[in-house]
């Protein structure tokens, strides 16, 4: 297709390895970055839930029972 000579296989394999390594590395970094962002968002959401005051219906906890 490309009309390469007998060394065409070497050229194509070197090019394919370059693309695969750089593409694979970029995808690996992207998945790590997304994972970290998700973890931070999850931690923030958990923190907000923990900080919220809880509602109670128990009379003793509401200070109605001496």
């Amino acid at each position, binding site marked *: 297709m490309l009309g390469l000579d007998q060394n065409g296989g*070497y050229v194509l394999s070197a090019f394919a390895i370059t693309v695969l390594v750089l593409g694979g590395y970029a995808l690996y970094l992207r998945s790590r*970055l997304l994972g970290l962002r998700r973890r931070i968002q999850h931690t923030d959401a958990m923190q907000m839930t923990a900080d919220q005051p809880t509602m109670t219906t128990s009379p003793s906890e509401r200070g109605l029972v001496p």
Partner: protein
Amino acid sequence: MATRIIGISSALLLAVSAYGMFFLARPDRVQGDAARIVYFHVPIAWVAFLAFFVVFCASVAYLRTSNPRWDHLGRASGEVGVVFTSLALITGAIWGYPIWGTWWSWDPKLTTTLILWFLYLAYLMVRSYAEPPRGARYAAILGIVGFVDVPIVYLSSYWWRTLHPQPVIGPLAEQQPSTSIIWVLLVSLVAFTAAYAFLVRVRSDIERLSTI
């Protein structure tokens, strides 16, 4: 947003440079189509040098200021530099087999590049195994000392005239290549530099978020 723009630009530029190296560049009179490997082997090696220059600068800045931002940049550039050096060694070996008849030779250029690869692998290992503040300082020192090997790699084929070809472009090139070769090489160099910038930005973001 800027990271995404750099990422998309680098992908487009890499596609343009691939078109140039396969469809616009002519095969070499002596090496035939194997010479096309040079269009990505040389830019990859240059970007590896750039990555280690950034490690050098970030290491100096970190030792002077102790600002963790420099440390994050140094680590990110070191890791990406090791990836690019690995690719330079692999693509060089694939070029060497049809041209030299061997995958590897203990030629000064190849040997000093392998030493460079080991130095920055050690840089990353120091980061991984030493305690954070001390590890960052040790790694910064290694990042500065290790950079001494970069000019040695570049000048090795000039100092010791051996198997590896002389520089094909730049001030030390003995004869300047044709304009079309220079253009394809330059587009490829810009494309791989953009890919480096994208990878370093993403890696730095990971480093910054890991410390939160």
